[in-house]
């Protein structure tokens, strides 16, 4: 059986490499082509896990999510994720009730601590998942963060 789509992907990958080699595209632009569109468009946890390859993710007490229980401003919610799993390769920020679940996926190089702090947007009160890939296996922890409206400090 023929797989035209695969063939197209294969040939377009080759084209991309050629364009980079010829200097037609800068490496940064080529890199943007690797952005995981399917993962960032996932609207259900099962779909996201499938795309990321983490369908068998296990709950873990080795992962900490450090954030306030209540955030006054859903536009800026500081969240720190720390993984104590050896050889942590990826840390993903997943917000269950956002229009698209995946907020960010960090790739941790060897020698870099599995300890990331950033700020995300939350549409409403939601569980936040830290999805960690370590030694090729997936683990997660979660924490509910409440979003108060009006900014009166709830």
């Amino acid at each position: 059986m023929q797989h035209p789509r695969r063939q197209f992907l294969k040939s377009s990958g080759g084209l991309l490499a050629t364009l980079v080699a010829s200097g037609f595209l800068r490496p940064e632009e080529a890199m943007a082509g690797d952005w995981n569109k399917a993962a960032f468009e996932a609207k259900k946890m099962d779909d996201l896990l499938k795309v990321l390859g983490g369908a068998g993710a296990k709950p873990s007490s080795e992962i900490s999510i450090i954030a306030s229980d209540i955030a006054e401003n859903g536009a800026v919610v500081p969240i720190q994720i720390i993984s104590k799993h050896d050889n942590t390769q990826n840390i993903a920020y997943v917000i269950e009730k956002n229009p698209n679940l995946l907020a960010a996926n960090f790739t941790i190089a060897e020698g870099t601590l599995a300890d990331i702090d950033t700020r995300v947007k939350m549409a409403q009160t939601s569980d936040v998942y830290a999805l960690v890939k370590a030694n090729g296996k997936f683990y997660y922890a979660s924490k509910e963060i409440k979003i108060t409206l009006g900014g009166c400090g709830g």
Partner: protein
Amino acid sequence: MKIRAKLDGDLVQVKVLMAHIMETGLRKNQQGDLIPAHYIQQITATHKDKVVLSAQWGPAISANPFISFKFKGGARGDRVKIAWVDNKGDTRTDETVIA
């Protein structure tokens, strides 16, 4: 972009603040039209040509993104470079020296 890299023991603590609108593409303007998405999709942090951290982002990262991370193997005077690419193909690279 504001970057601070500070040596603390054997760790370099890096803090980055990027200027970017991070528009989700889901909001409407006063006329009711969708405001087109405009957000950073990829960031790369390098120390002496070695990538120490990279990330893919969606529009749910807050406007004017902030990140903080720590890596080993840096020394005072080394350069740390941060680069981003957004969904429109705009890119920016800045660097700092570890203090």
